[in-house]
């Protein structure tokens, strides 16, 4: 029942808040949201504590008949790959609620409810073992996110909301057809049974592309990434945090759960193609990030580049590469979350995100600058931060796969260092450039708390990643066994 609690506690609280709702900002709504998110987070903790490392299969399994007509079940379970994302989702949700505390003052109840429901749905995606259940959760996340962007977003929010919705819907509808096809071949929607389905190479390639559409858009991979910067720029801080920290991971997770094990031959066959796309994301999009004038856009492009690292790791088909990709995903959750939070902190004070409007922030906000610099360092993969661990593993695996690819992947470190540090230099250091910066006030207790918690996670994972990788490892080995065995 732990998984059900993790999914439904936030959704239930979200609904209560929605009906409790009032137009005026009230403390009650905020506290209720906080209680809901914290309870939701606590509900996920037993997953990690009681996780059996020796067992590479699915744990905490729940199964109930849902739509017997198509043999669709309410089937939940986690392995080492998904468990961390569930905890991460619940954790980020708490931060989002806290981050919105004083900042959001219109339609507070709808805002909080959207995020709580979204969090439950995303946990559902990570926990679903039934393909249709996965799909329902995957699609349902669009509704709250659409509303979040459209209601609380910036000036161009409606364009961004539409772009987000239609891009992702296009991808996932093709995936639905792939799922129905697999259902007709296997007579079940059980994802694990699909891993053993026999498919010829043509079927595999077509299925691979159908799944690829959904997941590549969500990750997003170059050249399907164009929605992300637009959406990030318009989304409210909380929306950006959730988008970067969790939602992008849904796509990458889909690759691991569907594409690789269901179509292993096609994956091997198309691996070089995906690696090529990933390298373009890492290098080209990294270079694009360099010239951004808007901080949020810069971090958004940096997200695309970092997610390129993740897909690169996956399609090297080595334990190190895949584990590196997963670690990178978790780390990116913390780091990108923290960076968007930092931009939010600045935006709340100055109401601008243009790099040129800042300068010398360190003189007025020393504590904030310390945290922000730490996150920038983590973003460029400095050792002893979580960013280093994943990138290092992926680069190592890439060198092992092909030296040239390794070298190309490693350029990411240079590029990310360039854009992160250059931004830090222009925003935080140097002389105070204008009167608005002069009036800045340092972090309040609430903001300090959030940055501190994220910093602890970033450094903790950077210094001692073993607990995380220990849980991931058996599941990845298990996954690779499916990928290694040809279905032809």
């Amino acid at each position: 029942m732990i998984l059900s609690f993790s999914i439904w506690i936030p959704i239930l609280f979200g609904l209560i808040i929605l009906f409790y709702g009032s137009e005026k900002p009230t403390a009650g709504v905020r506290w209720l949201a906080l209680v809901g998110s914290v309870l939701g987070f606590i509900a996920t903790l037993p997953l990690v504590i009681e996780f059996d490392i020796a067992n590479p299969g699915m744990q905490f399994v729940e199964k109930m008949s849902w739509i017997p007509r198509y043999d669709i079940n309410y089937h939940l379970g986690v392995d080492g790959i998904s468990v961390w994302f569930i905890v991460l989702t619940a954790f980020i949700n708490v931060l989002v609620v806290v981050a919105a505390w004083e900042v959001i003052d219109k339609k507070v109840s709808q805002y909080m409810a959207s995020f709580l429901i979204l969090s439950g749905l995303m946990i559902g995606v990570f926990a679903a073992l039934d393909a249709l259940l996965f799909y329902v959760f995957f699609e349902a996340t669009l509704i709250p996110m659409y509303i979040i962007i459209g209601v609380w977003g910036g000036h161009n929010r409606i364009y961004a909301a539409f772009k987000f919705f239609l891009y992702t819907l296009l991808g996932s509808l093709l995936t639905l057809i792939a799922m129905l096809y697999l259902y007709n071949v296997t007579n079940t929607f059980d994802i694990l049974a699909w891993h053993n389905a026999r498919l010829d190479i043509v079927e595999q390639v077509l299925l691979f592309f159908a799944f690829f559409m959904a997941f590549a858009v969500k990750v997003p991979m170059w050249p399907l990434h164009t929605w992300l910067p637009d959406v990030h720029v318009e989304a409210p801080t909380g929306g950006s945090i959730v988008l970067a920290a969790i939602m992008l991971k849904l796509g990458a997770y889909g690759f691991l759960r569907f594409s690789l094990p269901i179509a292993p031959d096609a994956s091997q066959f198309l691996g070089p193609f995906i690696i090529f796309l990933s390298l373009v994301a890492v290098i080209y999009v990294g270079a694009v990030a360099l010239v951004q004038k808007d901080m949020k856009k810069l971090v958004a492009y940096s997200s695309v580049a970092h997610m390129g690292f993740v897909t690169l790791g996956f399609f090297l088909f080595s334990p190190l590469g895949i584990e590196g990709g997963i670690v990178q995903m978790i780390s990116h959750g913390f780091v990108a979350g923290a960076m968007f939070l930092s931009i939010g902190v600045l935006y709340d004070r100055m109401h601008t995100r243009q790099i040129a409007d800042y300068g010398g922030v360190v003189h007025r906000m020393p504590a904030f600058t310390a945290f922000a610099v730490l996150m920038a360092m983590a973003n460029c993969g400095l050792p002893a931060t979580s960013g280093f661990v994943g990138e290092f593993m992926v680069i190592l695996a890439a060198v092992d796969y092909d030296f040239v690819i390794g070298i190309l992947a490693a350029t990411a470190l240079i590029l990310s260092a360039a854009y992160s540090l250059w931004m830090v230099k222009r925003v935080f250091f140097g002389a105070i450039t204008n009167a608005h910066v002069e009036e800045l006030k340092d972090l309040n207790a609430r903001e300090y708390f959030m940055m501190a918690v994220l910093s602890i996670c970033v450094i903790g994972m950077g210094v001692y990643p073993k607990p995380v990788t220990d849980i991931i490892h058996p599941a990845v080995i298990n996954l690779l066994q499916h990928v290694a065995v040809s279905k032809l």
Partner: protein
Amino acid sequence: MQAFDLYAILPELVLLVVACLLLVASVYVPERQPATPGVEQDIFHTPRGVGFVYFFTIILLVYLILAFVARMDDVSVVAMNGLFQSDPLSNLLKACSCGAVLISLIYSKQYLMDRAIFRPDFIVLALLALLGQFVLISGANLLTLYLGLELMALPTYALVAMRHNNEKSVEAAIKYFILGALASGFLLYGMSMLYGVTGSLDLIEIFRTVADPRVNHLVMAFGLVFIVSGLAFKLGVVPFHMWVPDVYQGAPTAVTLMIAAAPKLAAFALLFRLLVNTLLPLMGDWQPMLLILAVLSLVIGNITAIAQTNIKRMLAYSAIAQMGFVLLGMLSVFDDHAYSASTFYVITYVLTTLGSFGLLMMLSRKGHDCETIDDLKGLNKRHPWFAFIGLVMMFSLAGIPPTVGFAAKLGILEALVDGEHTFLAVVAVIASLIGAFYYLRVVKVMYFDEPKAEHAAEISGSGFARGLLSLNAILVLALGIFPAGLMAVCLDAMRRTLLGS
């Protein structure tokens, strides 16, 4: 006539007798303007006389629903010398169309009163149209089918023209009448060819003869073209769809709901009876026709809907596209799963339609119809709950989980993939993606736009109607999360009907 025959047609008889009695009684109802407009009215509190008719109609409809639900487990029977058949599918569809008319009447009461067309004749016409639907759904003979079709159509022509001083309504009524008559003509022509070839009007008899290799196939195929065209007119699918947007827009919203909801069930029954039950051996001829109609409807319906600024027109084009989906379900080779998926689709579509038009009526008030998409601007700011209802309806029409529209589309797509029409499934999916755009735009207008000052209207409609609308929305959501029950009912009804025929 045997006692057994009487039992089979009892609900229809009751409906006919009560409708006639109410018609007579309504002669004595004085013409009266409604009570003070804008004042909250509870459900039975209406001008005397009309209230009486209304009250009895509600009771009648509730009785009919219960009667059909109670008959759901009955086996298929053919009564009245093979003119009439009662089977599980017809009982299910009739119960649903009764429900749809009942809900339509409750939603539209305030709307009609505000426009001074809440008159006994309105209610009686609606009941007679319902009777036509019953006959159509249960027709076991080409003649009964045709009679049912006309009985359903004639009262609706009159209903569309109810606002006889409104130019648009009259224009729509004339258009509807002429095109409807044309469609009936097509259908009748096709039927006469069928009769000429097979020598019978009886569906079962025709079924037996059609498969006979000695029958002239060419004439039959020719007749089939006319029958399918007539059906396409009635269903409102491309390229026979031209009347749909004009009638939807021109008719008073209450009448639009009467046309958009329950008749779809009857049209589906007609489709099923004629094509699957009767002309199954000609499948190779009618399936390609349906395929073209379905694909055209999906593509043209969805693309044209994007350009609409009037929400009733937009919903009309959306209906065209949705009917395309229903047709897709009929493309499988004699498969009860596929047909039951279509049944599920139609029923849930009607439920969603009731909700969407119901919302439009409650947002209308005296002197102002909620008709353009702009009228919904900022609804979330004024009435968050009603905006939420609108959101659920739109996402359901777009087929986004966890609403029932998704479960319905899932069934159809599954049937397509199962029937090895995977390419068609992809086309359908891309068409729905295009469709998602205009449904999303409605949500956008409700949630993201600022309300216009002149639209700060209150929600009209009695507390009961509002409650029912809320229930409607909750049902759309709940059936999306737990579709298994209704799916099983549809499959069971379809399976036993196919076995029985």
